[in-house]
């Protein structure tokens, strides 16, 4: 073999080689200390700016547990939970339809995604809220006959708007999830004699859920935040409650900060829940969080994907 040219400064004679227990000195990283110091300094500056800025922190503390705010947060959670449930149900229904053998079902699912993913969710909320302008009465023979304004309350409009919109995203997620379950799983189920329905319910969907669980967690977190849009349709969730208070007392930034604290608390709890859910479903050691390193290691992991 030809010798490769290399640029060692000076040959090390065998006689000078140290013993096997020779001390190893690690490379120093002074740059890390410098960059860390700069970031700490910046954080301190920002912190001080807010501390001495024109914010009455006592007002923030005072309203943090005010009845109206807590009730508003309750509505926020309720809207988010209902809308997420609706979104997941629609996502699975249309996601399965997207993969149907029937081209008309496939088209209908595509149309749903096209319409509801292609328009702003705020616009959709406003349309649901004003749906009575199009259909003054909701009339289903033998079931229901009511004025639309009585049926589609701000709460119902918020759940429909957020849920139907989320469903359009989750449709694509579910479709992708089903598509990434190995084809052999389906074939194995078929050779055992399982019908398409049994195969979907017992073999494909459980594995799909596991695959898309991180996305569903992001959906839940996103939903908690997007529910603030319902403030625009007179739904008395937390942001709306805060607005009604600061219109009166003028403590605008204080009440917005109160909301920020509650949203952060909510998203933090959801993140922890997501961790344990993923760990539970990761029993077969297929997902990254199943190696029991604990929540904090998981929380600091590099982001795998952006929010939907």
């Amino acid at each position, binding site marked *: 073999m030809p010798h490769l040219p290399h640029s060692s400064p000076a040959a090390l004679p065998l006689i000078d080689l140290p013993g096997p227990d020779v001390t190893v000195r690690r490379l120093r990283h002074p740059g890390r200390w410098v960059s860390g110091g700069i970031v700490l300094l910046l954080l301190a500056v920002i912190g001080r700016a807010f501390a001495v800025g024109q914010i009455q922190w006592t007002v923030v503390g005072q309203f943090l547990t005010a009845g109206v705010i807590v009730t508003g947060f309750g509505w926020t959670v309720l809207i988010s939970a209902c809308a997420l449930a609706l979104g997941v149900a629609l996502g699975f229904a249309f996601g399965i339809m997207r993969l149907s053998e029937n081209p008309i079902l496939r088209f209908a699912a595509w149309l749903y995604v096209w319409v509801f993913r292609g328009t702003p969710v705020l616009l959709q909320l406003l349309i649901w809220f004003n749906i009575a302008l199009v259909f003054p009465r909701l009339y289903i023979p033998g079931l229901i006959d009511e004025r639309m304004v009585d049926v589609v309350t701000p709460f119902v409009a918020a759940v429909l708007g957020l849920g139907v919109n989320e469903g359009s995203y989750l449709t694509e997620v579910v479709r992708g999830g089903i598509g990434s379950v*190995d084809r*052999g*799983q389906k*074939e*194995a*189920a*078929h*050779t*055992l*004699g*399982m*019908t*398409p329905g*049994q195969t979907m319910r*017992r*073999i494909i969907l*459980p*594995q799909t859920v*596991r695959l898309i669980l991180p996305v569903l967690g992001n959906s839940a977190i996103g939903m908690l935040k997007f529910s603030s849009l319902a403030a625009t349709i007179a739904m008395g969730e937390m942001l709306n409650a805060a607005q009604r208070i600061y219109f009166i007392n003028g403590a605008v930034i204080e009440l917005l900060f109160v909301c920020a604290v509650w949203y952060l608390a909510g998203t933090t709890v959801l993140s922890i829940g997501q961790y344990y859910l993923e760990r539970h479903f990761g*029993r*077969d*050691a*297929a997902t990254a969080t199943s190696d029991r390193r604990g929540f904090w290691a998981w929380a600091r992991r590099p982001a795998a994907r952006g929010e939907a």
Partner: protein
Amino acid sequence: MSLAVKAVGIRKSFGSHEVLKGLDLEVAYGEVLCILGPSGSGKSTFLRCINHLETPNGGYVWVDGAIMGYELNRGALQELPVKRLRAQQSQLGMVFQHFNLFAHRTVLGNVIEGPMVVRGLSRDEAEARAMGLLEQVGMAAKASSYPSQLSGGQKQRVAIARALAMEPRVMLFDEPTSALDPELVGEVLEVMRNLARGGTTMIVVTHEIGFAREVADRVVVMIDGEIREMGAPQQVLSDPGDPRVRSFLSRVLA
């Protein structure tokens, strides 16, 4: 010996590429048939046509008194609803090259799935029988493990138990050892050898010439979507008449 499987004029094309060019085959009960042939000769596709994982473009397969996927109705083949096709498919146990164990189920969960869901057995009965089968393939100790915790050879032995749990008339093996590390091939072949000794009817697509020579009652050699040689292993493997079969065998036996 009564006939278990009869394939008649099986044709299959993918796009314009004709993979199977009209294959006929008969397998008797208790027989072990090995299908050999070079890669791309269509042997896996043929096996998948036998249990209708692939629908043949021409011809049909008769299994134990019924035509797979069809019903003879006034001289024509009427396609069956999917539920009846699946019932037929469950008569044929399939073992895949890549195991295809259900990743979200334990070893035991994999084996009881078919009997519980398709046959309607109670969990207790299905588990009792599954444990017997896992014993038979030497995997009882791993009953509560998940597939991702097993070696390839262990996975394949579980897959065999899962297929046997449906009490199929015929076992089909699609290159069951091709995805295994060399040192794991033996344990799977040993299980298959025991099945053959026990009188199980088997159709085995394989590259293991040694296994075919030792266990098969008959050997088929496929080349380019056609059966070029069929007969007792000694005769086919030692003295093939077809020059292309001779060249294939000289390559794999070398």
